[in-house]
């Protein structure tokens, strides 16, 4: 028996794939506790709510993970999220400070376009000017927030009650982007999360692009000497990150049904937290999409569970703090256990 166990654990490959086991364990544990207190937790409605609440965080976090994999950071995502929604709203509905309106399709294009522009500037300043991305994206966070307020004139937009009302097909098309419900009342938004997960999983784990990101993030100098296209890849990750933030902003606008000036830095913060909780290293070179998803789930689950339990908002902060620390700790401990088990079995295997 020990033989087969050792054979199993001895393979480093299996160990690698067990990396985020502890985090998954923490999530199951929290879920069990919440369920034992509130049977509504596992109800289909609540599960839908839970998944829905992960959408924006998730798709922005997947892209952010790639940025972090390269050893960079993108603080501007929260602002880009707001900017994209605001630009779409102002162009489409009018009422902001722009002197003209456009059709929805043009507005959507402009919303994503401006997101990509911010991503490009992030890339440009980091790559060409050589600024730390912390500074670049912190600056662009302010710029994007400012732009968003200037363009919208801090108006809150509600397509369904706008004056003049947009054509019905535009309204329903827009609603269909994220807000519409499919069978079993599943909102379209959740499809975006699923799609983004698959896409980014493939990108990270099954393409040269993902593989090279890991290499570049692990040792930039060696990557340079190996002639990997570091600069190009940096542009790409910043563009991807901004694009996903823009997409998230637009589909959340569609789901919520309105958009207005919001505080942007909190989303950036949450996104980075999710990525780091998911095991990525801020020094670069380490991070997986599954881990990031687990990080997102943990954060969303915590909010959901605490709301279900009816814990006061001040005490919630205590819980969030302790559980975040606890979950990552559990993850670390389980990793160590698995690793040392693996080493022991590898050794006995080698000795035999």
């Amino acid at each position, binding site marked *: 028996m020990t033989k087969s166990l050792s054979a199993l654990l001895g393979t480093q490959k299996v160990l690698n794939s067990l990396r985020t086991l502890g985090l998954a364990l923490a999530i199951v544990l929290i879920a069990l506790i919440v369920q034992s207190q*509130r049977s*509504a*937790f596992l*109800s289909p*409605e*609540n599960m*839908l*709510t*839970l998944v*829905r*609440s992960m959408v*924006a*965080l998730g798709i922005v976090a997947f892209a952010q993970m790639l940025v972090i994999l390269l050893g960079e950071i993108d603080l501007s995502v929260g602002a880009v999220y707001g900017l994209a929604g605001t630009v779409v709203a102002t162009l489409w509905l009018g009422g902001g400070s722009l002197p003209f309106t456009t059709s929805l399709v043009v507005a959507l294009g402009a919303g994503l376009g401006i997101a990509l522009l911010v991503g490009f500037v992030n890339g440009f300043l980091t790559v060409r000017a050589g600024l730390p991305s912390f500074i670049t994206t912190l600056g662009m966070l302010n710029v994007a927030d400012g732009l968003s*307020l200037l363009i919208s*004139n*801090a108006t*809150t937009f*509600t397509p*369904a*009650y706008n004056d003049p009302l947009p054509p019905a097909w535009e309204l329903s098309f827009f609603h269909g982007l994220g*807000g519409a419900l499919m069978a079993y009342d599943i909102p379209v938004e959740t499809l975006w999360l699923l799609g983004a997960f698959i896409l980014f999983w493939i990108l990270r784990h099954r393409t040269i692009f993902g593989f090279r990101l890991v290499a570049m993030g692990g040792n930039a100098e060696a990557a340079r000497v190996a002639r990997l296209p570091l600069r190009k890849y940096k542009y790409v990750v910043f563009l991807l990150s901004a694009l996903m933030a823009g997409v998230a902003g637009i589909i*959340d606008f569609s*789901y*919520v*049904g*309105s958009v*207005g*000036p*919001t*505080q942007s830095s*909190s*989303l950036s913060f949450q996104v980075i937290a999710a990525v780091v909780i998911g095991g990525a290293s801020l020094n670069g070179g380490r991070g997986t999409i599954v881990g990031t998803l687990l990080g997102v789930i943990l954060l*969303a689950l915590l*909010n*959901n569970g605490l*709301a*279900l339990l*009816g814990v*006061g*908002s*001040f005490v*919630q*902060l205590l819980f969030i703090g302790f559980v975040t620390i606890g979950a990552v700790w559990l993850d670390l401990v389980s990793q160590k256990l698995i690793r040392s088990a693996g080493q022991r079995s590898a050794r006995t295997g080698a000795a035999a």
Partner: protein
Amino acid sequence: AEKTVPEAAKTHQMPWGEFKLAPRIVKKIEAGEKVNIIVDIEGTGIPIQGAEMRIGTKKGCDAANKELSAECRLVGPVNPDTTKQLAELETLLNSGQVDCLALQPPLPNQFTGIINKYAAAGIPVFTLNIDAPKAKRFAFYALNEVQAGTINGEATAKLIKEKGIKVDQIAMGSGAPDQPWAQSRMEGFMAGYKSVFPDAKFFNDAKSGIPTGKNFTTQEVLNSVTPFLTAHPDVTLFFHTDQGVEGVGNVIRNLKLNGKVFTSGFNVSGAILDAIADGTTLVTIDQGFDNQAQAPVEQCAKYLATGETPADPLQYLRPIVITKAGGQDELSVEAGRERLKAASH
């Protein structure tokens, strides 16, 4: 204690259509079980507002329990966070934890979708402080921001006239100059002030309020208003849309501009009252955050017990105007202190 639910509560014709109270709530009331009244505000940790609304919720609950057996809870993110607040609302709805909702959305009309979902699920919703007039809510409890601003403007102008103060230019600032409520107050203030001094010169308009720190803390106000007043000696009156006015009073004192520069604004605290006593602050409006939370909680109970709901959905609360001497429809500093004590204990 058995209790029957009146038909007027079970189904009610609202301007936006028919409302059907959820059968599970009816059953609960009939069984004499406690109904859950939830007050969900945009920031439980916002200075002054959070603490006073907590107290208002409690007071409202005491009153509510005279109508039926109720349990009341104040929820919401610590600081404004649209996504988080929305997810919490959805979660509470899905787990059947709400029997009546008093809601402060972060922006006007922002939570139209979720309010309508609550209505569809048979849960009455009232809004407070910030409204969602396009949604299926029963009523809205708050100041009429434009009106409150106007009253402030008029009161301030009267005092200026009375004391013969020379005002060159007036600036307006806010912790959240982008927010509709702040812009409404500034708009109102301009109108009210100009009704007394038609030629008054304003440094900025309602859309371009001077930012004084988005966390509404006194520190931020000190760091932004001090240089502003230093650089603009011709600005001798500063209108501030929220509790930052406490900081403006400090700035005037620190810069030794007492008697030259004055301020008026919103909200109430010990320091603000003292600045009024000092004469640096002319007028403040106590929004009665406690009342804003208390009223919808009471109304929740009233509706569930009697099926009554106000005919006019806009239930504007009376702005509590505080000046040094007090007067008709105005509280004096002393009376203000009494009210403050009552609102926070």
